[in-house]
């Protein structure tokens, strides 16, 4: 090998190496950035609580004073009630109004025994008071058996409220407070509903269409044309589907009783977007099923549909699973098409025929509001990343199982 050849070889190798390094570095940076920004906001509460704050009136099943010790990591400005086992802090809310925020609740505190007394369907339900709740007012019983009002309405700050409770009370009676809100439980549910509905619509249609193209119809001009059309649809930007979904698919959802944007409309739109993907993936999976298996089945007196459903499709299952995975990832990640069809209003109790946001749309919504909360957006992104990762692993596992059974 002469010098210039060696040099060329070295440069080419270096380039491939460099490109790979850049790609890996960029991906890693994105992940690390997301983690650093979002990790602190990521908590179980974020996933399990409502987005909208709720004003609640609660009473306590066990309101009697006890003896509690403050946690070692209590923040400097917080006031801890040794009789009732919770900590309070002065704060201001987004409207710059004074609030009293609960920063710590002992697991045995009377606050854990709260139940809702507000009239309505939730009346009587247990509603333990958590950190970040903002206390408006509370009634306690003093040593003379008198009910005493305390809290913001009585002009208290954190220190004076705790002082009142810890010096002159025997039990707490009731509390009026606001839950923290800002959780994404509703959006997670809406996303799951959306995924489920989309798959229910797109998988049967897509798989059967692929079966028709690949197994039933002959290889002729018409099928070639159909294939080409499907291929072309694959490249259309999703926002266009979103717009046309609003116009063309909305009447379909009306048949089911929807009166505007809804999860169903979003799912139908996603199904249209994903149809070419599913057909394509399934077809590819069908093509690799050996012809000899079809022949073997037919030669045993199986009908064509028996051959398809008993031999061909089961053998194409790994590919079909891949199609499913791709679909789910696309649904999780899609925002453009869903802004019009599912709305940008965060809902805590998503219903199929009502508007809701998916997680990705909620990120968009968080970032386009007046006070963009990048940390929260990052936390939601992390949840999306984890969902996708989990899904990938599951499908890998299933595919491995299947191929082990069949290998």
């Amino acid at each position: 090998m002469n010098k210039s050849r060696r040099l060329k070889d070295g440069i080419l190798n270096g380039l491939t190496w460099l490109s790979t390094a850049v790609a890996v570095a960029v991906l890693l940076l994105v992940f690390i950035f997301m983690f650093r920004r979002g990790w602190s906001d990521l908590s179980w509460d974020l996933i399990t609580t409502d987005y909208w704050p709720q004003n609640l009136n609660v009473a306590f099943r066990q309101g009697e004073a006890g003896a509690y010790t403050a946690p070692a990591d209590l923040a400097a400005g917080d006031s801890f009630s040794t009789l009732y086992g919770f900590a309070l802090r002065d704060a201001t809310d987004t409207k710059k109004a004074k609030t009293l925020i609960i920063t710590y609740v002992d697991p045995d505190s009377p606050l854990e025994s709260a139940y809702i007394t507000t009239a309505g369907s939730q009346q009587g339900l247990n509603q333990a008071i958590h950190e970040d709740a903002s206390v408006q007012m509370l009634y306690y019983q003093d040593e003379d058996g008198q009910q005493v009002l305390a809290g913001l309405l009585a002009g208290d700050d954190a220190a004076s409220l705790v002082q009142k409770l810890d010096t002159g009370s025997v039990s707490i009676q009731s509390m009026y407070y606001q839950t923290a809100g800002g959780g994404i439980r509703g959006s997670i549910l809406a996303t799951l509903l959306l995924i489920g509905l989309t798959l229910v619509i797109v998988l049967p249609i897509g798989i059967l269409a692929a079966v028709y193209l690949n197994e039933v119809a002959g290889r002729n001009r018409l099928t070639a044309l159909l294939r080409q059309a499907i291929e072309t649809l694959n490249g259309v930007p999703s926002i266009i589907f979103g717009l046309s979904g609003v116009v063309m698919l909305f009447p379909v959802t009306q048949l089911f009783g929807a009166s505007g944007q809804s999860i169903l409309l979003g799912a139908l739109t996603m199904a249209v977007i994903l149809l070419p993907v599913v057909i394509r993936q399934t077809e590819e999976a069908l093509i690799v099923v050996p012809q000899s298996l079809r022949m073997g089945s037919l030669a045993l007196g199986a009908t064509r549909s028996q051959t398809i459903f008993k031999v061909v499709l089961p053998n194409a299952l790994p590919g079909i699973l891949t199609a499913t995975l791709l679909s789910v990832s696309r649904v999780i990640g899609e925002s453009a098409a869903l802004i019009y069809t599912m709305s940008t209003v965060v809902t805590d109790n998503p219903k199929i025929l009502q508007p809701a946001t998916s997680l990705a749309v909620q990120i968009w919504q968080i970032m386009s509001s007046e006070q963009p909360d990048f940390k929260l957006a990052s936390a939601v992104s992390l949840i999306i990343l984890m969902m996708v990762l989990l899904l990938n692993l599951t499908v890998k596992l299933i595919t491995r199982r299947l191929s082990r059974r069949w290998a």
Partner: protein
Amino acid sequence: MNLLADKKIKRSQEPMASAATPDLDPGSQTAEAADRYMSRGSGPVARARTQVAAGLKPAAGLPDLKPMFEVQDLNLYYSKFQALKHINLTIPAHQVTAFIGPSGCGKSTLLRCFNRMNDLLEEVRIDGRILMDGRDLRGPQTDVVELRTKVGMVFQQPNPFPMSIFDNVAYGLRCQGIKDRVYLRQVVETSLKKAALYDEVKDELDKNATKLSGGQQQRLCIARAIALQPQVILMDEPTSALDPIATLKIEELMNDLKKEYTIVIVTHSMQQAARISDKTAFFLLGEVVEFDDTVTMFNNPSDKRTEDYISGRFG
């Protein structure tokens, strides 16, 4: 070669066969064949004849000689190309009929006509008739799906379904809507026994069939066909992907199977044809050049081209 003549020969042998004990009969046949071979020299055919002499050649003159298939002036075209030209032959029931001939001469094509697998190919045109039990195979009253349960097929490459051994054998019956576990189990068992596979797999019927060896897979495919209790089993080079031991097993199996089934086999091995078949058809360029008793065909072929092919001079 000629249908009538052929029948006459068979008929004339019949009383003899019934007179002699069945065990002795093949011996006398093969001894005679061996004698003739000795006087003719060596080569592949000669070796085949040795095997004939060794007694693998099944008994001639079995009681049932009624025709299974009667092919009448059959022509088959793949779009413009004529793959079969004026085929006339009669496949006798309960015999092993071998199709031999050079590559591309239409053996597989004719075989596929018997279970109508050619229907699946596009641009195939067929004229002429194939009668099975006196009924036209391609007539409107013949149901293809039902036909394929009566005429089973074993392919060149073993093609077990990627499912359990049990499910493979039960496949055809389940396709007919039979669900009774006990009955299926019984059929699976007897089919595997008839295919001489049962002893090897009886403890692992749940094992994936694709994990079996090639020879086992091929016997599984035979069991799968047998499970439908067909009248005919078509085999297209069933041992070409197998080693000699597996091949031997399948050949022995065919010898047993012909008591219950009619077997038509395509083979490229002269020895195999000589060892296992009762009748042989020699194909050349889409035509049947010669069709006769295997013994006759291998010992004194009436056509020069047959002789050349058998003795390995071309093909």
